[in-house]
């Protein structure tokens, strides 16, 4: 059995003259939770469509669970569970009927299906609502049902599009726990998200995609570190002048320095020594009212790589 769950090799996808994906190469290992991040229109959906066989690459290769997508897409779909952003549940059917329909589509053996449906509904905490129509469910209930539906045929690879979308804070945590449990059971999980906390909590590795190209690929902590190890936020009186910003930016170990209102935000690499030099330089030039120190956020990494806010 191959150790690679998904492998994209020099994949390009064009729609007419527009290149949506440009020579994208990517590897997702079995058993990991891999997050694909990118602003709207970056090519995430196109990439996922190619991985799930809904779209064919213009050039390059897509291999999923050791099978070439162009050769045997049905075999791949049998091993792929999908939770689309829009849930794709039949609202007029009951929760149970939705699962039964999915079992029929995936030709899940009839023997034992009742038990499996019951256990999945229990997992989704929907066993008491099994006979209720999905149209009466809340967003969180629909999301949980969509998740267990994707698990019904016991997929080796689960694709989850925006897991936290439309889910309240309490349900979100429960949903993340379910996803982490899946990883523990050996399921490979691919998620796309615009929610960095989610990526941070769930993902072993992240791929950041922008304009159809992979701009970063690493674990969340490594990605943050690559941006610097500390962010200093300093409130000064008066507001930081441009010459102070320039002075700080020129110090060795400073990755970036930006002034916004009365705050000066400095990202540094090199630990306490660099931090000390930055603080000294600021105190020499102006009055330091308040100082905060923290790790860089994924948001900042994302912004520095793509030049955009993630939710743009």
């Amino acid at each position: 059995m191959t150790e690679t769950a998904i492998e994209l090799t020099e994949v390009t996808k064009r729609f007419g003259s527009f290149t949506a994906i440009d020579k994208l190469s990517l590897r997702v290992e079995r058993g990991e939770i891999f997050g694909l991040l990118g602003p709207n229109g970056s090519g995430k959906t196109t990439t996922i469509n190619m991985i799930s066989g809904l779209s064919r690459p213009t050039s390059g290769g897509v291999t999923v669970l050791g099978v070439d997508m162009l050769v045997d897409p049905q075999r791949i779909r049998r091993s792929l569970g999908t939770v689309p952003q829009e849930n794709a549940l039949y609202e007029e059917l009951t929760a149970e009927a939705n699962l039964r329909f999915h079992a029929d589509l995936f030709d899940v053996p009839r023997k034992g299906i009742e038990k499996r449906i019951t256990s999945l509904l229990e997992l989704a905490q929907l066993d008491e609502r099994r006979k209720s129509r999905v149209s009466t469910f809340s967003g969180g209930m629909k999301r949980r049902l969509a998740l267990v539906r994707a698990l019904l045929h016991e997929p080796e690879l689960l694709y989850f599009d925006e897991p936290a979308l439309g889910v309240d804070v309490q349900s979100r945590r429960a949903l993340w726990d379910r996803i982490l449990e899946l990883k523990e059971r050996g399921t490979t999980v691919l998620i796309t998200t615009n929610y960095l906390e989610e990526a941070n909590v769930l993902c072993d590795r992240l791929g950041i995609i922008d304009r159809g190209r992979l701009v970063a690929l690493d674990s969340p902590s490594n990605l943050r570190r690559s941006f610097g190890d500390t962010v200093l936020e300093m409130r000064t009186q008066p507001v930081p002048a441009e010459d102070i910003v320039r002075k700080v930016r020129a110090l060795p170990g400073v990755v970036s320095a930006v002034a916004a209102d009365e705050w000066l935000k400095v990202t540094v690499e090199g630990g306490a020594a660099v931090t000390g030099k930055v603080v000294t330089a600021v105190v020499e030039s102006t009055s330091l009212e308040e100082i905060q120190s923290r790790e860089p956020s994924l948001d900042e990494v994302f912004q520095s790589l793509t030049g955009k806010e993630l939710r743009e």
Partner: protein
Amino acid sequence: MGALRAVLAIAAKDIVTWVRTPSAIAVSLLPPIAFLLIIFVVAGATGRNPVAVVAEDSGPQAQRLVSILNDSDAFRVQAATPDEAAHLLDTLQVAAVITIPASFDDDYRMHRPDPVQIRINNLNLDFTNDLRRSLPTAITRFYAGQPDNPVMVGVAESDLRPHDVDLVQFELVPILVLLLTLLGVVNGGLATAREFEDLTIKALLLAPIGRGALIAGKILGCWVTTMLVAALVLVLSAVSGFLRPAGWYWLPALAVIGLIALAAAGVGAALGATFRRFAPVSAAGINVAIYLFFLSGGISVAAFLPGWIQTIAHFTPTFYGVDALEGAIFYQSTDNLGRDVAVLLLTAAGGLVLGIMSLRRRLVLDD
């Protein structure tokens, strides 16, 4: 086995969804019900006109004429005094007042002219002409039974068909065809469009089934829904006696119904895949079905329509469906059955090809 299971599951899911979607049921059932009501009202209004009969003479000849008027297919007779009759006419409760004068029997015996008077509410010409034609017909019948009948010219009728068909019964066939086309086109369309509108199409496309199984499931679901409703309508019609094919004529009737439903399901799937939205599919489906209804001779007989409409009607598949069903249900005739079934078979094949091609094109997210 897996493909068959998926086909049946998709079909069953679409049937359940249809049953649980009142708007879809209303869209496909309300137009035929409306036409049915119109036919009942029109048949009631044009079949027998309400008249008041004032018999001022109580002699045997006058009473015989009253009896003939009572038995006439043209009138619903209400006996009245002159004052009552005038009131009934003024208040639009009757369309005319027929007065048999006090001297009727005497005049008859003396071979003097018998001026039976009729006062008509000439509301519109169609209505008025019915009354104008019907009273002389009743008087002709009055004289026909007399030994000294002065009218020597009679009518010898021979009928092309084995029996008369009531207007309402006759109109039920095109309405049944309208119901079939509406159910097929609108339900096939909505079942397909709903997958795109609700984005559930993704769940189907991500299942390990071929496009063929998906399309077969959609068309089968729509066809079965249409046939279930048709079966219910046929059973009700047969029990009530309105539409009851005799003996083995049930078979061609059911085959024709099945073919119309199949063709409509294919066209519906094509519409659904083209528009991919509930509202335009409903609007287009209703329009298509109603145009087909009129062109196939709904509310009239296609053969008696102006030549150019007849030409169009001959290119309208439902025209052949109506013809085949009329032959099977009313006249126990297979005269044109071969031609009609051949046209419907071709239409069903065409509808299916159209549906399959449209769906196949839409089931790719690439372009």
